[in-house]
C-alpha cells in the first residue's frame, strides 16, 4: 500500500444515497482472480444511463451509506483503479469503509452540508495528517481512527503489524483457545471429500 498524505484536485459528484456495492462493481466482474483491472467496470450498469457523468478525479463526493451491501473488496479496488484516491460522504457502510482503509483509498466522513459545499466547489484538498478538508468557500475537519491514520500515512501492511504480536497470539492459543480441531473433524485436511 502506498502512503496516503495530501490529496488535492477535482471532485467527481455522485449525488445518490445508499449506493450499494452491486452498483459499484456488478457481480459478473467478480470472477477475476487478480486484484487489478476493475476500474473499467466501475458503475457498469449506471454508466450507460443518459446524463451519467463521472470524470476521473482524485476525489469522489457522494451520498449517505455509501458502499452498503456485499463485502466485496472489488468495490474499493474498482474505485481506486478508476483513479479515485479518496471518497467523501456523510456516512459509509462498515465493511466498505474498512476495506477502503486496507488498500489506501481514503474514506472521509463530513456532514451533509459540507459534502454539498464541496460538490459545488468542484475541487478540494484533503490533508490526512491534520484531518482537514478545504475547498473554495469552506473547510471542515474529519474523524479517523488514529491507528488507521498511522497505517495510511506510513503505507503500512496490516499483517506485518499483527505478526509483531505473534507471541501474544501464541499465548492465547496455548491458554484460552477452544479445545479440539474444528474443521478437520474428519482428519482429512486438504482432501476433497
Amino acid at each position, binding site marked *: 500500500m502506498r502512503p496516503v498524505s495530501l490529496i488535492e484536485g477535482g471532485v467527481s459528484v455522485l449525488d445518490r444515497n445508499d449506493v450499494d456495492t452491486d452498483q459499484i462493481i456488478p457481480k459478473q466482474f467478480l470472477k477475476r482472480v487478480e486484484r487489478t483491472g476493475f476500474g473499467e467496470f466501475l458503475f457498469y450498469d449506471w454508466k450507460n444511463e443518459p446524463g451519467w457523468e463521472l470524470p476521473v478525479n482524485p476525489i469522489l463526493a457522494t451520498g449517505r451509506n455509501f458502499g452498503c451491501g456485499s*463485502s466485496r*473488496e472489488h468495490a474499493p479496488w474498482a474505485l481506486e483503479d478508476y483513479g479515485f484516491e479518496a471518497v467523501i460522504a456523510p456516512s459509509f457502510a462498515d465493511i466498505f469503509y474498512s476495506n477502503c482503509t486496507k488498500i489506501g483509498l481514503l474514506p472521509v466522513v463530513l456532514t451533509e452540508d459540507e459534502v454539498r459545499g464541496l460538490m459545488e466547489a468542484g475541487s478540494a484538498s484533503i490533508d490526512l495528517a491534520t484531518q482537514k478538508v478545504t475547498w473554495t468557500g469552506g473547510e471542515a475537519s474529519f474523524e479517523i481512527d488514529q491507528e488507521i491514520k498511522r497505517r495510511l500515512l506510513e503505507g503500512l501492511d496490516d499483517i506485518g503489524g499483527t*505478526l509483531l504480536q505473534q507471541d501474544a*497470539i501464541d499465548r492465547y492459543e496455548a491458554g484460552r483457545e477452544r479445545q479440539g480441531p*474444528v474443521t478437520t473433524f474428519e482428519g482429512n485436511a*486438504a482432501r476433497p471429500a
Partner: protein
Amino acid sequence: MAKTLFDKIWEAHEVAEGILYIDLHLVHEVTSPQAFESLRLEGRRLRRPDRTLATADHNVPTDGSTAAAQIRDQLSRVQVETLERNCAEFGVPIYSIGSRRQGIVHVIGPEMGITQPGMTIVCGDSHTSTHGAFGALAFGIGTSEVEHVLATQTMQQRKPRSMLVRYEGELGYGVTAKDLILATIGQIGVAGGVGHVIEYAGPAIEGLSMEGRMTVCNMTIEAGGRAGMIAPDETTFEWVEGREAAPDPLPLDDWRALRTDEGASYDTEVVVDASDVSPQVTWGTTPAMVVGVTSAVPEPAGEGDERALEYMALEPGTPMSEIRLDRVFIGSCTNSRIGDLREAAELVKGRRVASSVNAMVVPGSQQVKAQAEAEGLDEVFRAAGFDWRSAGCSMCLGMNPDIAAPGERVASTSNRNFEGRQGRGARSHLVSPKMAAAAAIEGHFVDIREWE
C-alpha cells in the same frame, strides 16, 4: 459488571487491544484468490488450516455438475479450480463442487455442527452474520482481511457499539422469520444498524427454529449491522447435538453462560412489535423498501424512492397483490434450508405453478438436497412445475447461469433487491418461502394467511 452476550464473546477472544482471535474462518472462491496469492508472494504460512474451511458456492452451476472441469463459464471454472488448488497447497479442508457436503458457506457450517455457540467466525461474505443465530460473533470481511486471518488467525477490529432489537408479542399465523426481519429493516432502515452488533431478543425470537433464527441474523447486514446474534438456548443445543463436527458431550455449562446479564446495557435499543408484523413484500431496490402484502405500493418519499419505482416499473397505489410475476426463486443463504423447503412444499403440494411463471428451487447444500429428496419434496416441487436444482448461491446474485432477464419480475426468498442483483434490469421482490410458493402458484402475490 453486567455484560451483554456480545461483551462476553468479545472479551474471551481479545488477544491484545484491537486484535480479536478467530475460531473459524470460512472461505469461498470469489473473495479468496487474491488473499492466497498475496500469502504466496509474501512467503507467509497459513496459521491454522484446522480452523479454516472452504467450499465453492457463488459460481457453481446448479445443473448437477460434479467437478470444476464441467463448469462451462471459463472465468467461473478458473475461480473454482483456483480455490481447489489454493486449499491443496495450504492444507485447508475443502468441500468443492462434487462433494456431498458442498453448499452455500452459511448453510454448511451450521449443518455440520462446525458453527457453535460462543465462537468468533469470519468469512469474506457479508452474510456471515447468519452464524450469529447460534450465539456466535460472526463478521463479514473483505479480501485484505481474509488474507490477514489466513496469516494470523486474528482480525484487527475496534469494538463496535451494541444494539438490542427487542421484539414484543408473538408472530401471527402465517408470519415467518423472514417477515420479521424484513419488517425490522423497514422500521430501522438500511443504515439503522451501522457500527453496531445487533442482539435480537424476545418471545418471538425464542419461538423461532434455528433455521428461522439464521434467517433473521442473515439479514442483519441489510440493516447495516456489523453482526447479528441470538443467545443460545435449548433449541440451539438440540440442533447442534449429534452433528458430525459437534463436541461430544456438548459443553453445556459454558454455552448456558452465553446470555446477556440482567441489567446489562446496550448503546442503542429498538423495540419492534412482532404481533403487528404481516407477510412482507419489498417494492423497491433496498430491503427497507418493504410493506405488508395487504398494502399498496407507497407514494415516493424522495428521489431515491422515485428512482426505485421507475426501476421497478411500479405505480404508487397499486395493491401489492396485483403485482404479476415472471419468476420465482426459492433459495439463498437466507432461505434454502430444509425447513424452508418443507414450508414451501406444503403449500405447493397438489397444485400447479402458474403458466406465466418460471419457478425454481435451489437447496442450500447437497445435504439439504439429499434430505429433501429422501422426504420426497423434490417430487412435490417437480410435480407442481418447479425446476429442482443443485446447491449453490444461484439466482441470489446470478454469478452462475441462473440469471433473470432484463425486465423480468422475480419473487425471491433471497436477501437483496438491489438494481441488477439477480440479472441486469431484473426486478426483485423479497419474500418468505411461503409467500414465494403461493406467488408461484397464483402468478401474483397473495396473502398466505387467507390463501391457505
